[in-house]
């Protein structure tokens, strides 16, 4: 345990060193970048609120991915599932906004988002389970399709009055926005949804027969079905749950952040969730701190282009490097443990 901790710390330090090098290469100074990102994330209550607003969908996605990872599936289709959730949400809102009272429209829209994502997740499941298509490509393929559909809708049937543009569809009426804290982006309801999802995921995977059966299916599908586990049903459930939670995240992007459908409505949070899930491995309790940290990076980096003339993609570089080195560090600690025990 201490050995693994030692390697993880070394991995973290190395990755920070490398990130510093990359910043220097781009002509920046690591110290300035840190100050700027810190100010970008903590500087004003509004910015801190944005961190919380990023955290909610990220928690939803990561929770969903824990189900698919447990079942032994790489659900790279999570981005598309978010997009489909956002599309379903937008669809219901456009249909109902002039008919029903706002509260009901919002509730229906959240439900529609979850169902949209769930169906898209199930479709990936059908391709994987019944079509025997590699999980990675079923998911990636459906991402392209979802993106294509969103683009088509934004530039076609749902285009803004006058001229269609990459800025998305018409803004919804503020009465249809998810209530936020004061004038900020922070929506307590969204964060509550995210944390609830995380708690439930933890409980289901650790304590229930469903969780145990998912683990069995993930480790050995054939043996699991011979032991009498309804393997197909559990696999499809994992796809559906993950899709549903991602769809919910997509709904929140529309309802709480953008208030319209935009071309990359997922903001890459689905893939970021995959990174979080890879980084934490089996330590579910690490999700909350890691997701918070990643959200801070995402929001903090938005200041970089303005303050230091650096690209905001630095957040992705920091996240990616940390995860990469964590995986490599895990590998180092495993092979050295093995070498000393034999």
């Amino acid at each position, binding site marked *: 345990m201490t050995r693994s901790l030692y390697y993880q710390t070394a991995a973290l330090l190395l990755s920070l060193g490398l990130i510093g090098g990359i910043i220097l290469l781009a002509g920046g100074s690591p110290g300035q970048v840190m100050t700027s990102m810190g100010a970008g994330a903590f500087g004003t209550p509004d910015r801190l609120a944005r961190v919380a607003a990023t955290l909610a969908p990220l928690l939803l996605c990561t929770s969903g991915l824990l189900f698919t990872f447990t079942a032994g599936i790489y659900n790279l289709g999570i981005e598309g599932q978010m997009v489909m959730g956002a599309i379903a949400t937008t669809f219901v809102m456009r249909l109902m906004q002039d008919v029903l009272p706002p509260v009901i429209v919002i509730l229906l829209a959240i439900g529609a988002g979850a169902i949209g994502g769930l169906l898209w997740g199930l479709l990936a499941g059908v391709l994987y389970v019944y079509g025997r298509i590699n999980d990675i490509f079923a998911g990636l393929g459906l991402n392209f399709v979802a993106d294509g559909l969103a683009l088509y809708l934004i530039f076609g049937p749902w285009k803004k009055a006058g001229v269609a543009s990459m800025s998305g569809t018409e803004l919804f009426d503020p009465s249809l926005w998810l209530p936020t804290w004061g004038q900020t982006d922070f929506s307590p309801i969204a964060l509550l949804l995210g944390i609830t999802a995380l708690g439930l995921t933890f409980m289901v995977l650790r304590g*229930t*027969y469903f969780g145990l059966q998912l683990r*069995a299916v993930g*480790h*050995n599908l*054939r*043996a699991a079905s*011979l*032991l009498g586990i309804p393997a197909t049903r559990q696999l499809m459930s994992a796809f559906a749950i993950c899709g549903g939670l991602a769809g919910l995240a997509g709904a929140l992007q529309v309802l709480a952040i953008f208030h319209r459908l935009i071309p990359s409505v997922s903001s890459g949070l689905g893939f970021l969730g995959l990174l979080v899930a890879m980084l934490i491995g089996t330590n579910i309790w690490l999700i909350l701190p890691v997701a918070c940290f990643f959200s801070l990076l995402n929001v903090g980096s938005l200041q970089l282009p303005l303050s230091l003339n650096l690209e905001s993609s630095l957040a992705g570089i920091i996240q990616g490097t940390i995860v990469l080195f964590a995986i490599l560090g895990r590998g180092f600690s495993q092979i050295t443990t093995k070498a000393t*025990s034999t």
Partner: protein
Amino acid sequence: MKVELRHIRKRFGQVQANDNVSLTVEAGSIHGLLGENGAGKSTLVKILSGFIARDAGQIRLNDQPVVIQTPADAIRAGVGMLHQDPLDFPPLSVLDNFMAGRPGGIWLDRAQARQTLQRLSEQFDFDLNPYTPVRHLTVGERQQLELLRLLSLGIQILILDEPTTGISAAQKTALFAALKHLAVQGKAIIFVSHKLADIAELCDEVTVMRHGQVVGDLPMPCADRQLVKLMFGRELATPAKPPTRRPEVALQLTDVRIATDRLAIKLGNLTVYQGEVMGLAGLEGSGQQFLLLLCAGLLPAASGTVTLHGVDMTAKPYTDYLQAGVGYSPTDRLHDGLIPGLTIQDHMALRAPSHRWFVDWQTMRAKAQHAIALFNIRGQPDSRVEQLSGGNQQRTQLALLPVPLNLLLMEHPTRGLDIESALWVWQQLIARCQGGTTILFMSSDLDEIMQYSDRVLVFSGGQLSAPIPTTELTVDRLGEMIGGRLETDAE
């Protein structure tokens, strides 16, 4: 070429697999390496063939020390090994398999390789079509191909690791003839086996290993009793199977036909009684496994009905069979039977029929503890199954069978187990039969079939025999039937 292994040592984790092992094999002789599973035979020959790096010791060929660290070194030194599971490339053709790894220029010379292969095949009277993909070959044919390939590389020392597992009687005869022929040519042959009969038939000398050490070198022939005593450190008594068959019918097949994309076979009518043990004999892939899968509810019948204790089970789902007390135990334990990564208590929980949501881990732990004591498993409730030895995995698998168990379907119940574990397994199985369980099992070990079955079904050439009581059968007759002569001669 003469081979000498001197003071070989190898440790895997806590296990000293080879402890100061020395072995000398003269050129032109067939040398048996005998021992139960886990005695260290495979480790020793894998060291000689460069597959495993040794911790200490020396290898000498013709009295000269040689460096063998990788298989490439071994082949260069003239050492070749036939592995227990043929190491080849199933989708590639026989010819491409023959050529892969052969020295030569940049480009492949298929015409020349084909001639070499043909010449060698004729020499040993093997019948291999160069253009067939290897995945369509039987284990015996794949072994023949590997043998020819090694010979074409000019090897002088040939190692065979458990070569008679999974091959037909005719293929075994052809293999033994080829080996004797090679010994006459002056090659040194090391024959690794745990089967006394094979060693007795083939070898000029035998070395017995136990717990990683050499416990004896004997010239052949010698008495089986003496070898068994060396292998186990004591004499073993094989129990006679008591009569367990009852008059009630357990399983009834009526006009059943199975059709898969690989094989269509007419099973017809079959009646099996409670407490009976039915052995299924035949070459691998002759349809025995399909009968087991059919009875387990894992393969639908193309036509006909399956009745269990008077209940029609035809076309019912697998879970109904499980509830009816049908247990299926596949060969490949870590692939089909158990779930690597999960613990013994996880397995117990998975098996526990429950309509609740939450797992009661305390109860499961107690259950696992109980099973560990009852089935004599060397492990803890939270040991992961892949950390257990083969014998303990088989015990765990037995502990997971449904209770009550009405019908038990087993593929190779003792494959890969040492004789002691095998005896233990059959003791448990016979006890189950005395309690009324019916057993259908398939095995490539004819002695096992003869010893434990009440009746035997023989599968051959897409057909199956009528059930024959073992009292009316001999191993030789069984071998003939497997080879294709199903009907008893009229006279």
